[in-house]
């Protein structure tokens, strides 16, 4: 199980995350910035979350060890 975290100070709304991983991220209602839908992921969902992280131009998405 991994934890998904977004640094909203870095997010500027490129929207790559909710394009690539709509299961894990959503478009917020306000400005199209990132909203985390699933804060804990594993298996396939961990892979797609990681792919979103790898394609965020701001490096704002972290898929990291879940320490409870």
């Amino acid at each position, binding site marked *: 199980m991994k934890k998904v975290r977004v640094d909203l100070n*870095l997010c*500027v*709304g*490129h*929207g790559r995350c*909710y*394009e690539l991983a709509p299961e894990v991220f959503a*478009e917020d209602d*306000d*400005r*199209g910035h990132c909203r985390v839908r699933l804060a804990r992921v594993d298996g396939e969902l961990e892979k797609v979350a990681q*792919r979103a992280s*790898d*394609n*965020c*131009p*701001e*490096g704002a998405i972290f898929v990291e060890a879940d320490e409870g």
Partner: protein
Amino acid sequence: MSTPNPNPDTGEVDVVDPSFTACPQEVYKRLLQECPMAKTLGTDSPVLSRYEDIRWALRHPEIFSSEMDIHLGLGTERPMIPQQIDPPRQTRYRKILDQRFSRRRVVEIEPRIRAHANELIDSFIEQGECEFDQAFAIPLPCQAFLELMGLSVEDLDLFLELKNGIIRPPVPHTDLEAAQEYRTRTGRRIYEYFEKLIDERGAHPREDIMTHLVTTEIDGRRLEREEILDICFLFLLGGLDTVTATLGCNLAYLASHPEQRERLVRHPELLDDAVEELLRWETPVMMLPRVVKQDVSLGGEEFKAGTLVTLLVGAANVDETEFEGADHVDFDRGRNRHLAFGGGPHRCLGSHLARMELRVAMQEWHRRIPVYSIKEGETPRYSPGIREVQYLPLVWPTGEGAGS
């Protein structure tokens, strides 16, 4: 022998040299290896190339500012909003504009853009050839813009004329004074056009962006007339040429790389990733201007306040430190954090619209004209700064056996 570009002796790079804009990737590579802090030819103005330096600069508008004192000579009387102003002022405008250019909003007009793309293709497909820029890449983004703004499609020709009057004034190339005069005159016509619309939408509101600009509030007040005009000016200059250029760069690349084109046609599911990879490789908006607001040290170099700087995002997008195998166009690249839409608070406002247009245009073109190439003996011609492929003659088979 001609001077190499960049010149390793002087550290200068000619960023508007036609051979550079036609095929910049080799120059980027040498810049990154030999002089990641170059100067533009004949000036002392630094050119940044490294991915990390550029990303840092984009994230710090309080240091690398978009608020230029000098006019960029685009026929405007004031800075364009929100591109030429910085946070915190810029943020207030972005809040209301981002909503209207969100992915959710642009998806609403996707079917109409698809219909426009097909109408354009209908008009030339039987001929087996076209000049892509005039026939497709210019009109499609203009139609998309009119749809999104809620403007009449009948205004298409007028819009193209106004846009070209600013970007490419129809005067002799060398007559800078005449060009400036033409731009100023065109700028005034653009203001007049939008002034009329502001009045119309004020009297007869509709469900469109123009009405939104007239009726929306920032901090409890409506936008001033001048603010609306400064936003509209940016829409017109920023929203059309950039997508035109990207479509041209993409088709020029695929026309001359048949194995990549064939793969894309056989595997349409690769299209989204291909669009991103071509944005990285081609980076049609190859550079962004900034002015230093406070003395700063970046990438081992000192920058003094007041210095004009060029961020060569095209070079950042082929920097090996960020992109493994950067000089290969790889549609399977799993990690792609390209900066083709810039980054930080000034991230391209229209990036969702642009991505939708690119996806739809590429899908429909390849569905209907899967086999094409550059006309024999012809060479595409690229413009500097924004790499519009101003001359791109394409040919394809017609009649029996076409489309295979």
